[in-house]
């Protein structure tokens, strides 16, 4: 069982869904977890869950697209906790919009949250990681970033951009023993998914596309994040792991 004793992990978008699952699992493994979210009650609820389970958690409330504020908060947290070892760039927003429906504002927001948010979060934590020669950055992409989708091209492009950051950072940061990988989830039963209209009938259709015949629980995606964040994966960098039930089998 990988241990995160003595490690500090930052989870962006840690207030809900998969981000909350990553935060809780890493905290259960002994990490002190910084839960960043734009939604204060949700972030505080994740921190409360972590503390109730006997773990250490603290919140940062800000919008990841406010890069100056995000970097300031992360730097202050690093000073307070002494280190940041693990960054999970998880904060994201969904879309099902068609090409014609996506406005410039939508487009900019999509890239700001996923790409700029991840970029400037990493920029804030990398100096400390370099100095300590320990670092794990895990970017959350999507199967849609790998193989596309019939809508949401702004989302697909942003998730694909995260794969670009992953591979470039893996090379750039390797000399400092910083490992950078991406997790590209398939279907996950998050609240965001479950709250969609007619989800029960639609889910039957959706899981027909998944060879394993089901969607994942958020904790199953967290398990892959935790593996990559652990010393078990110290020789893995620049790779993409896709827990997707066999829905997407591509490349190589």
């Amino acid at each position, binding site marked *: 069982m990988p241990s995160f004793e003595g490690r500090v992990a930052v989870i962006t978008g840690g207030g809900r869904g998969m981000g909350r699952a990553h935060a809780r699992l890493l905290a259960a493994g002994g990490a002190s977890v910084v839960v960043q979210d734009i939604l204060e009650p949700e972030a505080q609820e994740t921190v409360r869950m972590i503390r109730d389970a006997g773990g250490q958690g603290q919140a940062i409330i800000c919008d990841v697209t406010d890069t100056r504020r995000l970097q300031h908060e992360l730097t202050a947290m690093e000073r307070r906790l002494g280190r940041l070892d693990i960054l999970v760039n998880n904060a994201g927003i969904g879309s099902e919009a068609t090409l014609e429906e996506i406005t410039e504002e939508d487009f900019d927001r999509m890239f700001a949250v996923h790409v700029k948010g991840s970029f400037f979060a990493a920029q804030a934590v990398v100096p400390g990681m370099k100095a300590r020669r320990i670092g794990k950055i895990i970017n959350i992409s999507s199967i849609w970033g790998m193989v596309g989708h019939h809508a949401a091209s702004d989302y697909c492009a942003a998730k694909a951009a995260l794969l670009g950051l992953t591979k470039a950072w893996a090379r750039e940061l390797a000399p400092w023993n910083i490992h950078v990988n991406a997790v590209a989830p398939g279907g996950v039963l998050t609240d965001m998914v479950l709250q969609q209209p007619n989800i029960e009938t639609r889910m039957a259709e959706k899981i027909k596309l998944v060879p394993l015949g089901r969607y994942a629980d958020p904790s199953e995606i967290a398990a892959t994040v935790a*593996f990559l964040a652990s010393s078990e994966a110290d020789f893995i960098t620049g790779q993409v792991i896709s827990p997707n039930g066999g829905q997407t089998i591509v*490349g*190589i």
Partner: protein
Amino acid sequence: MRHDLRDCVAIVTGAGSGIGQATAWLLAERGAAVLVQDIDAERAALTAARLDREGRDFDIVVCDIADPEADRHILATALARWQRLDILVNNAGIGIDRPIEQIDEIGFDRMIAVHVKGTFFTTKAAVPALKRSGRGRIINTSSRWALAGHDKASDYIAAKSAILGLTKSWARELAPYRITVNAIAPGGVKTAMVRETLGEVGIAAEEREVPLGRWCEPREIASTTAFLASTAAAFITGQVISPNGGKTMIGF
């Protein structure tokens, strides 16, 4: 985290040395009963000696996996001892670094027989038991060279690529039975065989080409196999994970 393999039975082929040996040791350490298969009785005994010392539950079978009859014998040995099978690690392989002119028909056939036929017929024999398991895992061993090629060993690389084909089709074919099928494509690993052929100086030269600046120990490949074998990876199927220190980043 759920890396506990208690109550699981695993077969590891080529477990007499290198990655296979490290895999047998690690799966046993996590609680699995392990069948150590190797073509070489002395090497299998070396692996078994440590399992014995550590009080693990294990058995040995010595045979050539290129013979389908032997593959049925491997499975029969496991079932006779434990009456079940949950994890099959198809690891046995041979590595010979030859240019095309030096690969004769006998050498070519042997390369395909060990890697492809061996993996195929060992799995064919094991599938009924893995279907009964309800949490079956097949982990095939490919190579970084199958992803990126190499300036020699084209027979080896063709065989390791064929293993990726088996992985992807079995992932789909066996998903209805909750059997996951994934491949590991290791980069540079400091096995005894490699230390002998390349020497420490040769390895050091290779390590300079790797972003992380090193080759890994066999146990670091085994840790990815153990992750894929665990319930934490139940939603991962049809995927290729390449612990390679960042040497190869492709696809997607």
